[in-house]
């Protein structure tokens, strides 16, 4: 799990996708990953190492495979070729490995996907009680701590339908954190939100990053990428086009495809 290539000569030390940032030790390794939907190749030869405590932001036009990439990491999609290793566990057809990986990765969805039939508190305690086998009282105490953390403890008894989009997404973050994951995956967490609610979710994510959580974030929020990311990955047509530090990325992109994309959104 050590990096295989030499440092870049131009000093952008993280510009190689197979060199982990963060503490330098890779927690997620993707090697030669391909993914097909019927004839369509959604991912083509993805090689990526994500370091412990690294924040990696994935950007790119729609349909470029960003979401598919992170959905392969917790096996919501099954990759067709290559290896994916999460904290030493390789994703194979063995259901125990898959469960193991899912326990260690939290995921936040674009459309929140809170359970509408459960209260906020029950949404958060469901997995800890059933997977981590915590007793109810302990799970609820932990859930309240997490709600404090995302700054909505007063909503614990309400149902998801009674909350605003920003509040729902923060509950979703708390729900994922309740499993004490080592990695958090964010799939366009602010894309379904009204503009005035985006910042409350981004602030929560920034808190998380500053506490040293390993995060992979698919987003269109370039401000967030610039401020928080250790590395930015640019994808197009199922391939990783360019990887670099935010400074490198927003001031001196190398590839024409990247320049075009950035000129379109900035």
């Amino acid at each position: 799990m050590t990096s295989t290539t030499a440092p870049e000569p131009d000093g952008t030390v993280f510009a190689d996708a197979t060199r982990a940032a963060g503490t330098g030790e890779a927690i997620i390794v993707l090697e030669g990953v391909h993914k097909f939907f019927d004839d369509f190749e959604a991912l083509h030869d993805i090689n990526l190492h994500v370091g412990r405590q690294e924040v990696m932001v994935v950007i790119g036009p729609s349909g470029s495979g960003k979401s598919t990439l992170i959905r392969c990491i917790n096996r919501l999609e099954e990759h067709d070729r290559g290896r994916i290793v999460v904290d030493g566990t390789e994703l194979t057809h063995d259901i125990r490995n898959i469960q193991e990986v899912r326990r260690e990765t939290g995921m936040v969805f674009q459309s929140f996907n809170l359970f509408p039939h459960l209260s906020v508190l029950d949404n958060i305690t469901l997995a800890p009680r059933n997977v981590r086998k915590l007793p109810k009282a302990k799970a609820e105490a932990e859930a309240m701590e997490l709600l404090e953390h995302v700054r909505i403890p007063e909503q614990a008894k309400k149902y998801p339908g009674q909350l605003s989009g920003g509040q729902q997404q923060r509950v979703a973050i708390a729900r994922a954190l309740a499993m004490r994951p080592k990695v958090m995956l964010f799939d366009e967490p602010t894309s379904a939100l009204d503009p005035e609610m985006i910042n409350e979710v981004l602030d929560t994510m920034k808190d998380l990053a500053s506490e040293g959580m390993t995060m992979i974030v698919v987003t269109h929020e370039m401000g967030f990428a610039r401020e928080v990311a250790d590395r930015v990955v640019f994808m197009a047509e199922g391939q990783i086009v360019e990887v670099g530090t935010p400074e490198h990325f927003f001031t001196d992109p190398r590839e024409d495809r990247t320049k075009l994309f950035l000129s379109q959104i900035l």
Partner: protein
Amino acid sequence: MNAVRIWLRRNLFRTPVDGVVTVVFGAISVFVVWRLVRFVLVTGRWDIVRVNLRLLMIGRFPAAHVPRLAVAIVVIAAWAGLIAGIIRARQVRAGRAGVYVGLSVARVRDLVDRFWLAGVVVVLLLALTSTPGPWITTGLALLAAVLGRLAGPLIGRLQLLAVGGAMLFIALGAVPIALFVYVVDGAGVTEWGGFLLNMFLALCSMVLCFPIGVLFALGRRSKLPLIRLVSTLYIELVRGAPLFVLLLLANSALQFFVPVDLAPSKPTRAIIVFTFFTGAYMAEIVRGGLQSVPRGQVEAAKALGLSPVRQTALVVLPQALRNVIPAQIGQLISLFKDTTLAGAAMSLFELLNVAGTLTSQPEFRGQLLSPETLAFAALLFWTVSYTMSRESQRVERKLGVGTR
């Protein structure tokens, strides 16, 4: 007065066509209502119902064991009240319902709104009786229901551990079974009849068809081809056959497959047929519910590391079942009314069958009294169906179907 005129003009006589429609349909409605009222109060000869009330309600249930039935009714009333109280207290604890303080006007109005029809019919039945037994039973049952309702919250408020909760569940489930054994000890099911038999057949089938429906709905979506095939075959075969034919088969063809002395009794056969028939329809309803749950829900459950069984049991099924409450209750109401087919197909002595035989009694023969007996049967079925339907709407509102 002026306001009335404006209202009439706005709602009934806005255009000439409106006026004609109003007059024509108004006349028809008045005529129908007048004939109905005249039938109920003047021309109807309700003696046939009064004399045979017992036969209509419980058939040839042996008189010596009727007290057991009364005991069962009173205990069931207490049991239902207790469960209502427990559920209420749990909802209050979960923050889903406000706390009632005593007996307010709103609460009385709510109860009247829910049970007025059932209440009216019970009073009507009591007015037709000639013995004090039913009065005493009804009074005690009401008292028992109220006491149960008051005691329920005391149990519901307890913070039970998993073991305690399971024991309470089993204890509550054992009550109707124990009562059944107690009544059957006096008079076997084959001696039951009248509306009692309809209620019994329907309740047993309702309770049993639900798990069957859920199992086969899940089976039809299974990844294992064999399970999927068996489920699909069962559902499509049963839905493809008329219920009446299935009942006839159960009545007459069973002896070809099972030795006569091993064959279950006729009421049991009827329950089996009703259960599997309604189970097939339930399976399709539940399958529709399963499909109505968005994919993101399963993905969220997977991402949290829940096992496949827990994904289904804790996330998908609760939402699926909640989304199809109206269709489920509709199917159960249909089942309840279909119990009358067991009379025609298996000559079980249920309400409709009783109503049909009364008109050939010596003292009522040849007097064209079928309208009276059939109207009485219809009233009982309508009362129960209507109350079920209203209660299901209430459950829907409580669970917030459609509001998410």
